[in-house]
């Protein structure tokens, strides 16, 4: 085709709509404890979350596979990955977890997204100087 023909023909656009595109959901969570100097290892944290799932949903809940992708021990911030079907279960068991080794605690869910890239930026922490 000559360049002139190409210009005359209108461009082809194709719209793609994806529903439930990603098999996984990613969550960025932070654990806030009453005693702020307590430290947990990655294994401790995963065990704690599994115990929360077990107390709310039983053995079936504890069998829900999720992965701890990244963990920062100083700020107790973690990236979790879970199957999209298990998101509501995991999220609600994180919400209802109230105590870690007899001290009060709270899981603050900072971001949830089906795409890991979306977790790199957070408009809530945006600082405009």
């Amino acid at each position, binding site marked *: 085709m000559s360049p002139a023909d190409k210009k005359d023909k209108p461009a082809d656009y194709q719209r793609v709509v994806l529903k439930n595109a990603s098999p996984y959901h990613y969550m960025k969570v932070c654990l*806030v404890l*009453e005693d702020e100097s307590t430290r947990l290892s990655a294994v401790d944290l995963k065990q704690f979350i599994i115990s929360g799932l077990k*107390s*709310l949903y039983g053995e079936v809940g504890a069998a829900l596979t999720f992965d701890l992708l990244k963990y920062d021990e100083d700020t107790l911030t973690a990236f979790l990955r879970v199957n999209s079907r298990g998101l*509501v279960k995991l*999220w*609600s068991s*994180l*919400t*209802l*977890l*109230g105590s870690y080794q007899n001290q*009060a*605690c*709270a899981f*603050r*869910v900072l971001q*949830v997204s089906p795409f890991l890239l979306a977790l790199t930026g957070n408009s*809530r922490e945006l600082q405009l100087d």
Partner: protein
Amino acid sequence: MSVFMDLNLSFTADKKLLQSVVETAAHLGFSTVAINYVFEPTAKKKQDIPSPTPINELIDQLPVVQGRSRPIRVLNRLTIVMSDSSHFRPNAAEYRCFDLLAVQPTTDKLFHAVDRGVVFEVSYSAAIRDSTMRRYTIANAVSLMDTCKGKNVILSSAAEKPLELRGPYDITNLGLLFGLSDGDAKEAVSSTCRSVVLHAETRRTASGIISTMRSCSESSCQQEAPPAAADSEAPAAKRAKHQLPDD
């Protein structure tokens, strides 16, 4: 942007604790909170209804809500625990200093008496503190959602400490657990709460149109706010649509 509200924060006499609870609520993204005073009248002697401490005495500076530029709005709320509906007179003068009124029924018959279009509230912090209460909370919430079909319900904490508060999207997720649909669960934290607060304002006004204020001028006489032109104004239409008296 939707406005999230948590209409049940327990009142404590500890000023610092209350201030930290309100600060945590502002940090989590709640635009409005209500401090709840619980009053349980006993039949023996007539007790005084507690009067709310003014907000500026409780909290020095209202924290700014995360994601917005305005400070958090703090309301006063009274919960009356009662078993008999004859005690309740909604227009008593002592109730005027409270922005919201709530009733905690202890018997079935009161439930039937207040069946006309009120908003029901489910508190979730009991589920965080204790595992037996967790079962009761979920069971009662599920049966409530069955009865009211998911409309006219609000979810709130009854938080006594800042670690018992949860963010608005976390509570929306809990609503899914209680049997609400996606849209209903978010409404339970945002638009239904907002309609409760708006309706509570109409309690002090005549049909939501005219309100009177005592003016602080030398004459110290009552002054009327300018009345609306016709009865078919927006507030009257809002009342017909939403039907939320007395929460």
